[in-house]
């Protein structure tokens, strides 16, 4: 077949050069992998063993320090800790709050990032560039500061209430509520999503949009039928990283959220340090991990699928 040299085939040629199939690459790639296996993979396995009540070996220290540890009588473990956590109505409330905040924040972040990206792509100009630059700023502000700034901004004596008070209006206090947690999550997740989505949208040739206009498509049609599908992978990366970041977040809900119910990241830390119940804390970590891996799997799947669709695999 006389295939035109597409971007895909070129990239492939770069990615799989004939000369480079040597073990050297494997060994060069090893150090970070070992680091991760050692300090992430191994602890996770260990922690999983601990969560099902296997308290021998390296888990011995923590099991003896912690309170309320369910120990297994046999080698395959016991689901007792999971049962306890999942039947605890306060933790269940935390779980639903976590899912809700994650969904709401992710949708808001993607919506805003798409808005900025489309503004930049379709209208352009100084204001659009300024806006996209503005949205990057949170990337450089430590999350601790951001959280604290947001609390002060939306607190009882904060800016929002002060402004409304000038007109004699009593505005709600958002600090230390889930609203502030969502605001904080959106604030801190926005830069990454904006970077991903704007660069994805900018990479679409203008001729693709013009061809659609020429075919008779209006603004909404172009966005839905051309821009979003063509920037699907970057958008999906933005979605997954935002959702994974929010679902496991600690600092933002810790500073800006209420005592209870709050997100699982906070309860996890409370159970670990304040209540000294490490096993329950680890169980919660695995619950969040299951949610996060679901999101991550969607990302990996879509990445492969789109590569296939465009003839890259």
């Amino acid at each position: 077949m006389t295939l035109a040299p597409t971007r895909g085939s070129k990239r492939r040629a770069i990615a799989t050069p004939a000369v480079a199939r040597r073990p050297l690459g494997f060994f060069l790639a090893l150090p970070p992998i070992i680091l991760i296996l050692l300090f992430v993979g191994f602890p996770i396995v260990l922690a999983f063993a601990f969560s099902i009540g296997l308290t021998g070996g390296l888990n011995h220290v923590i099991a003896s320090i912690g309170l309320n540890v369910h120990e297994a009588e046999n080698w395959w473990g016991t689901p007792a800790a999971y049962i306890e956590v999942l039947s605890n109505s306060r933790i269940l409330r935390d779980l639903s709050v976590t899912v809700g905040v994650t969904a709401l924040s992710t949708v808001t972040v993607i919506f805003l990032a798409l808005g900025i990206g489309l503004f930049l792509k379709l209208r352009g100009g100084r204001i659009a560039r300024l806006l996209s630059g503005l949205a990057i700023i949170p990337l450089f502000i430590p999350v601790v500061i951001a959280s604290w700034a947001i609390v002060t901004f939306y607190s009882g004596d904060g800016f929002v209430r002060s402004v409304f008070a000038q007109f004699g209006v009593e505005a709600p206090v958002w600090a230390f509520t889930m609203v502030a947690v969502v605001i904080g999550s959106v604030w801190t997740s926005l830069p990454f999503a904006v970077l991903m989505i704007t660069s994805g949208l900018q990479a679409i040739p203008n001729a693709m949009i013009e061809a659609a206009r020429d075919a008779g498509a209006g603004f909404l049609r172009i966005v839905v039928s051309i821009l979003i599908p063509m920037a699907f992978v970057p958008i999906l990366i933005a979605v997954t990283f935002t959702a994974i970041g929010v679902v496991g977040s600690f600092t933002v809900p810790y500073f800006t959220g209420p005592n209870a119910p709050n997100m699982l990241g906070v309860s996890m830390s409370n159970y670990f340090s304040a209540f000294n119940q490490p096993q329950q804390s680890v169980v919660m970590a695995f619950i969040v991990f299951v949610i996060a891996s679901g999101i991550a799997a969607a990302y990996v799947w879509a990445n492969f699928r789109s590569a296939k669709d465009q003839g890259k695999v």
Partner: protein
Amino acid sequence: MTLIEEIHSTTPIHRETDAGGLRGLRVRGLHKVLGGRTIIDNLDLTVRDGELVSLLGPSGCGKTTTLRMIAGFLAPDAGSIQVHDREVSDLGAEKRPSAMVFQNYALWPHMTVQNNVGFPLKLRRLGKKEIEQRVDAVLALVNLLHHKNSRPARISGGEQQRVALARALVQEPELLLLDEPLSNLDAKLRVKVREDIREIQQRLGITTLIVTHDQEEAISMSDRIAVMNAGKIEQFSRPAELYSRPETEFVATFIGSLNRIEGALVNGVIVPGDDVVGIRPEDVVFTLHASFDARPAVVERVVPHGHFHEIYLKRDDATLRAFASGLPPAPGDRGHASIQNALTFRQGRLVTTTRVTA
């Protein structure tokens, strides 16, 4: 014998036989300034119903800019654009009755060939059945039915080009616009696809404007050619006429090859003067024997061009290029060179054509 034909300086640059009540495309006084520079300068252009017109010019002369204003992607600063007697210059691209084939085809990579072609119809809210029928019909027209379900990245450049054409044709546009549609194809395919385009265009009788910088392409496809230079149309006429009667020095040098010599032609000899004499290489005849009007000449250089040779001839009045087919002379050969046809330009405009008949 020498025939000299005076050209009246009042000859209009654009010749349009039908002025009012016109179907097709009519552009009047189009003007565009970009980056502080006048890119399109008060441009007029008429494409008659069913006609194929090429917009031909050197790189950067404003062809794409003109086409994009006609398609509606760029707002003109002034001027009117009418398609089938309807003013369209205030309409967005999505509302204009024209369809465009883009230089890099601009096929949407996430849609199959079928969906690419069907997209304009989907926007017109046609039924599924009808869309499918019309897509099939137009894919059959461009000979691509077998690639219906392929993705653009999986088909060849020539096939992609035909998909882009199909996507424009399926809209049954009143005006078809093509921006250098063949520039990404190799030389052989380019010839084939341009014949395909011409054939389909004539079969459907569709009014067409093609942008190109390839003169051979323009000459072989077009009913008429508008030669553009620096934002203006220099000449608008039939391909043959463009070659034999270029109205400006620019057109004469841009189309085909030209010996350009400052001076005047008197009795077959170039004498000093303020005008410019243009002689096509094929109008320079080199013989070994002396003949009427010929002057002695020495072969300076021979450049092979495949099926013919270009030879540089030094005469006592000028150095002339000529074409020779068959066995070429060798450098240093002596003979006689005569000028058979010449064009004389004054201030860039054609003033006389001189024909020497034996």
